[in-house]
Structure formats: structure tokens, C-alpha cells
């Protein structure tokens, strides 16, 4: 069975660091960064990118729509 690998891209400057995406992730990929963006928010990032399956749950709940999701099949 082909394995699926995913990745997310966060629009760092628009992320408000609400953290709603963190409990939505089934594989615990996302955390809030220690660094802050231009507005002073701790933005979301992939702490554990290997585990991402590209399920788009984080992007679906993101109130600001800052997450884009990419997915590939690995043979």
C-alpha cells in the first residue's frame, strides 16, 4: 500500500496563534513556535513533520485560513 506523506505551510504573518489546530491534528504534528511573528503571536509550525498525513483537519478548523496542506503518495 502506498504511504501518504503530508506537509503544511503556515502563513506566519497572518497566524494568530490561537492553537485551535493543535487538538485537531490526529498525529500531533503542530505546536506553537517559541518565536513570534510581526504581530507578536506565537505562530503554528510543524514540530513533528514526519508524522503529517495531510488530512487537512488543521486547515479546516483554522479560523484565519492560514494553513495550506500538501500531500504526496510515496511508493
Amino acid at each position: 500500500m502506498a504511504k501518504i506523506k503530508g506537509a503544511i505551510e503556515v502563513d506566519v504573518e497572518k497566524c494568530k496563534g490561537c492553537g485551535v489546530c493543535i487538538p485537531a491534528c490526529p498525529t500531533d504534528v503542530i505546536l506553537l513556535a517559541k518565536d513570534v511573528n510581526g504581530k507578536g503571536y506565537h505562530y503554528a509550525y510543524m514540530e513533528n513533520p514526519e508524522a503529517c498525513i495531510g488530512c487537512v483537519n488543521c486547515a479546516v478548523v483554522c479560523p484565519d485560513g492560514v494553513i495550506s496542506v500538501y500531500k504526496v503518495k510515496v511508493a
Partner: protein
Amino acid sequence: MDVKEIIKPENLVYKKTKLMTDAPLSYCPGCGHGTAHRITMEVVEEMGIWEDTIGVAPVGCSVLAYDFMNIDMTQAAHGRAPAVATGIKRVWPNKYVFTYQGDGDLAAIGGNETIHACNRGENIVIIFVNNGIYGMTGGQMAPTTLPGMKSSTSPYGRDVKTMGFPLKMTELVAQLPGTHYVTRQAVHTPNAVRKAKKAIRKAFEIQKENKGLAFVEIVSNCNSGWKMEPVDANNWMVDNMFPYFPLGDIKVDGELVK
């Protein structure tokens, strides 16, 4: 496999719809308004009706909805969005008209307009975001504030003896013969967002078939008004709002769901 190899345009599976502008949303972090805006615009995009859709923005936190939704929009006087939408729909019966209102706008000052638009069975979609508080003006008590819930104008909690009971606007309009589809949804989890999007899609399909008014309530959070972290506010909403405002369809195809 490196992340940079995955992040390529051909592998994209989800991004913000083009019908949301690039303006940063004015909402507080974690506010359900952004999600509700996005799923509404996704429905409009999927139905291919963005050139024929007219939205009516309310007064409240979502007053700037016309800056965020990249479609034709207008903005109504406080609470009068259903009346403005009625006028637009009657002049342009082939357009898709929706209002997007909060609980202070729809249930308080606009209660009368809402009830009468629903009773006339106007062919519009009403999207009602209920967070149990007046968010924009600083967290005052709204008609939908829960019993015992603290707000800046009920600092000891809402006392139902003097302040009345929370208004179940959605159950109320479901009793009126003019409404065709009445439902209550939420946007706090991926599953709930997908269900809410289906409900909004159904509401626009009903307008397409000229069947009557479709009313979609979205129970949402107000973490700054409730003085909570966004994720805690969502959990508080599940524990406290949902028992009083249960999710699910209330009226389908003009028949109350038992």
C-alpha cells in the same frame, strides 16, 4: 522525504478559497467567525455562484465581512439585514442572497425583522452566529447569554428572575410556516466544520429551488468575551452551550424534526 519536496503546487490539497480576500481578519485569535466566513465562501465557490451572490453584513464583530468576502456585499443598519435581504431578493429574484448575523444583531435588535422575514418565507439564507455575548462592544449580556454566565453587564452571572431566559431563536423561527430548513451547527472541530458546511450548502440549494427561507445557526465561541484561551473556550462551549443549544437539524423540508 523532505518537507520541501512535498510543498509543491502540484501536491496542494487544501488552501484558503479565492473568495476570501487577503485582508487579515479583524477577529480575535480562535474566533469562529473566520471559519464560518470561509465555509460560506467555499460553498459559494463550489456551487459556482459567486457572480450571482449578494451578502448582507450586519452590525457587530462581523460588520467588516464585506472586506473579507470577495463577492458583492452590502451592510445593513443594526438588525435590519433580513429586511435589506428581502428587498434585494425581491428586486433580483434570480440572485442568491444571504445575511450573516451575530446574536446581538439577529436575536436582540433585529428580533422583529428576523421573525417577520422568516414568517413571510422570504427566499433567502440567514447565517446566524451565536456566541452568547456581545463581542464587539466589550462582552455585554446578549439575549442568548446562558443562565449564571458572567458578562460585563451581568458580573454576578445572568439571573433569570430579573434578566430572563436565553432566547432560542432557532427553535422559535422553526415554528413559523415560512421557514423550510432550520438547523444548528458548530465550527469547533474538523468534523463539526464539515457538517456546518454541508448545512450551508443545503441552505443555498434550497434558495436555488425557491423553497423558502433557510436558517443556519452556528454556535461559536467568544474567547475574549468569555475571558478564556481559545481552546478552553471551545471546550467550555461544548460543556455549557451545547446542552442549552443542542446541535442538529430542527426543521427539514418544512417539517419539524422530532
